[in-house]
């Protein structure tokens, strides 16, 4: 039995999600935005795992596993985009990526 109530886990998870969201919105650097996105995804994973623990349902862990794989794929593509953007613009500032056409 865990002594920590479920609401504590959920508050922590939402705190991480909120911090990540603030980072994505306020930072205009592509790398920092991606890092903040990772923080958001980790907050979601924490909420999933807390629910899994409290419901005693291990199949939720499979969902978190898949979220992790998707996050890894997202980072790989995002960082490749950062490199392409750096080659093209000479910066990774999201405000300078306003054009859809190269």
């Amino acid at each position, binding site marked *: *039995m*865990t*002594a*920590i*109530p*479920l*609401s504590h886990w*959920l508050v*922590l998870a*939402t*705190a*991480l*999600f*909120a*911090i*990540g969201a*603030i*980072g994505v919105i*306020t*930072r*205009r*650097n592509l*790398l*920092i935005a991606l*890092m*903040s996105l*990772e923080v958001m995804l*980790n907050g979601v*994973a*924490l909420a999933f*795992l807390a629910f*899994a*623990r*409290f*419901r*005693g349902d*291990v*199949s939720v*862990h*499979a*969902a978190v*596993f898949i979220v*992790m*794989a*998707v*996050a*890894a*794929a*997202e*980072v*790989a*593509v995002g*960082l*490749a985009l*950062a*490199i*392409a953007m*750096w080659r093209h613009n000479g910066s*990774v*500032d999201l405000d300078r990526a306003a054009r859809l056409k190269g």
Partner: protein
Amino acid sequence: MAEQIVFYVLAVGTVLGALAVIMPPFARNPLHAAVALLATFSLLAGLFVMLSAHLLAILQILVYAGAVMVLFIFVIMLLNLRRQDFGEFRATPWKILGGVAAFLVAVRVAMVAGASVANSTAADLGTPALQSFGGAYDVGWALTTRFFLPFEATSILLLVAIIGALVVARREGGAR
């Protein structure tokens, strides 16, 4: 009691690490932000262990603290970002107020969601059905039976992501 202390230490550390990723005094240097992110991931792995998600705690270290961080640091060093390229955290009072308001709303939603779970005490892991809760056997069983199709789709997604990343990051003109 000891469990509470560990939880709060890990929780505060995780939140501080996450803040250090986005806040200006720490995140001026891209590598500092990356290290703060690494600390966040590692502390989160400890929290996963507290939720007896043992397999996912190890995967958190392997995938996030290992692979993802190496990718980030590799790209930061490859791009050779200078300080002025890194962007500022443009914190206006309205943004901070908005952040606080968003957090309070999120906390309220979390409370309601937590209260709405019928069984608000943790499942007893002493019962035979939950003996190996969160271990590789249980999670692997779920992945290869009930979640077989999403699991296989994930492998295709990873393949597509690898090829996509290579194509996007390739030099213009392509002769390599």
